[in-house]
């Protein structure tokens, strides 16, 4: 448990990434950031983070696809994924759950809410 936990944030909104990163680093996590789906997916495979925060609507590859690709790969399927989206439609949640997303948070979210969820998964 002495290792610093690695969190990968994938969102095309740089400001959102920035604030999340600041708060997570303040909690003592190491943060990696990607601003599009493709980079995000490559980084996930390279770094193998302890947790991912994933936006749905992104250029190149969307969040669902990343989630599906990772969750169906035994190498990465254990990475917890927190999905963040501005849409709050039930269908999305269902797809999210099907693609193996662990948590689903709707924008605008409370930073504390996200931090709590992250802690919950990383302290398991």
């Amino acid at each position, binding site marked *: 448990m002495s290792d610093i936990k690695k969190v990968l944030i994938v969102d095309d909104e740089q400001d959102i990434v920035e604030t999340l990163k600041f708060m997570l680093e303040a909690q003592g996590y190491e943060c990696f950031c990607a601003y599009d789906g493709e980079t995000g997916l490559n980084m996930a495979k390279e770094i193998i983070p302890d947790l991912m925060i994933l936006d749905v609507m992104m250029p190149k590859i969307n969040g669902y696809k990343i989630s599906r690709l990772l969750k169906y790969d035994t190498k990465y399927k254990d990475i917890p994924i927190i999905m963040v989206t501005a849409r709050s439609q039930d269908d999305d949640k*269902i797809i999210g759950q099907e693609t193996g997303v662990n948590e689903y948070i709707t924008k605008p979210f409370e930073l504390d809410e996200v931090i709590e969820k992250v802690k919950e998964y990383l302290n398991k």
Partner: protein
Amino acid sequence: MSKILLVSNDETKKNIISKALSKSTNALLTSTDEQSIINYVEKGQVGMIIVDEDTKDPDILILCKKLHSAAIKANVAILAVVNQNTDNTELLKFANVYVTKPINEKILASCINGSLKLKKAIDTLSMNNSELAKSLYQLDVLYNTSTQLAGSLDKQKLINIMIDGLEKSLSFSLSCVLVFNDEHNIDLIINSLYGISPRLEHSLKLRAILSYRALFDKKRIPYDININDIKVIKNIKHPIEEYDLNILKFDNLFAPINIGEKFFGLIEVFRENDYTQEDTTCFQTLARQVSLPLENASLYEEIKNTNTKLEKLERLKSEFISIVSHELRTPLTAIKNSLEICLSGKAGEVSAITDKFLNMAKRNVTRLSGIINDLLDLSKVEAGKMDFKFEKSNINTPVEFMKNTFENVAKDKKIELIFEKDDDIAQTYIDNQRIEQVMSNLISNAIKFTNENGKIIVKTENIQENDINKNCLIGVENPIFYPNYVKVSVQDSGIGIALEDQRKVFDQFQQIENSLNRQAGGTGLGLPIAKQLIEAHKGFIWVESELNRGTTFSFVIPVLSEKDKFLIDFDKDIAKAKTCSHTILFLLIEEPQNVKDSFIEDIKRDKISIIRKTSNTKEIFYEEEGKNYLAITMPEADKFAQSFIEKKIESFLCSSEEKQDSKKYDILYSTVLFPDKGKDAQDLMDISKELLKHKVEANF
């Protein structure tokens, strides 16, 4: 005046007959040439023939035989002059009338006059008869044309039907129809037996413009037609020959196509023969008949255009809303996050005054996201896109939740908040979260508008339809009532709402001008949303208030049977199906074992025919524990497919209701789902399977 032909060269006879005719205006001709006599009769150039029994050349009897049928046809009388005791009975048979020799002038004159009068009468009669036949034919054409006209809303088709009718009833050589589409788009449709020379075409255009101008007072011409704006459409039957300007000398009929002030065009027809009064009447009737369908057609076109525009607006609205949801929420999140970081002190020490303003910013960001959520909620329920999760539950549960939420707020304001729950309250189908939203809105309003030491009572009770004061239900169109309801009321001792404002509280953006309201900082959308949410539950919400005495907001939710619930859900699903391009229909059908389920077979069979029309349609049909699950997914199902399903289910429900005793299969669960575009067939199937299972587990 008639011509009388005497078949004789005998001068004496001629003199006698001339004498007999002298008092009348009739002219006497003589001839003994058989062929010319026959010609006279056949062409109807003579009104009467006089023959003499004694004439030998030509032979009178043979001549009469030859003339017989032509004479009848042309209505020419044959008068025979015979000897006193003639035995020529055959001749007498052919003659219409005879006089005996010696000729008595007076008798002969009266015979001639009588025959001619008879002829005239018969002529008139047969003329009337043929006119009658023609009129009948025209009427028939008119009738057929009007029937056809009534059946069409297409401008071009209407004009064609009219031209067709004109051709049948009036047989014109050339017809011109000027049709106004709009100011710079005018058609001149020319239907002609022969081709049109260029200069005739030009003068027909000019003529149409002149006729158009002539219809109006100079000052009142709606707009001037430019000859270049007229597009000529020609339908020529025999292009081998060509009409030139001389056709303009033909007899013509002309009529405007208009309804009152509204002007659609002109018709003009040309024909070599003159038109009769009846033709004119028929023509005008036709022109009048086409006006109304043409107006309908143009109205229909207008409606269609408006509809397209509305659909576009509706689409823009949804697009706008999704932009609002995504594009506004994302930056808001960034602002909120940044503020939180600053306020947490992790980004550096925060002075008291900075903290104050940061908090102010955060409060307003929260408020802004509240407004966005309200807007989204409202547009979602209005568009029928809000997803409700109706579950059979106790309305006291959300009330209990409210108690915990508002107890402290009320205490802070020194308001007494009382909950009076009926513990025997009936179970209803509600979406807990939405009912909480409504209650929270009503209670927070009550707290806002009640002064210190005031009192708020939240009450739940079972009521019946009769207990609802229907005068209070404002802005509800065609309300449907159920026998039993649960009622929730929030009564406060606050400032009250004036009667004229009570009508407005549920209207969007109709926030009542009230400084207190401003202070309270509402969006004015809370109550309109509450109204929509309650109406989605098939319930009603209303207000009763007295200024300075207090206000009571009440809402009722019907206590529904399983069947009512099914029908309501189904209605909603179908309504939604009509507006969506993606449709998944779930049917869960209970089927007695070992009976071939004709209904499912029907659907499957018909579905297959639809599958051929729309790609991507799939069905899952599987059995579990004696129940049949049928889910039909219809990505991009067309309107036809949707209406088909609607009808199918409707007829199924009706028949199962009527035939109580006969075998029937109950639809245990049905729903239609409308996922977003961009999901592939596998996605859709996964969702549908998953949802179907969830729903089944939840309901049974």
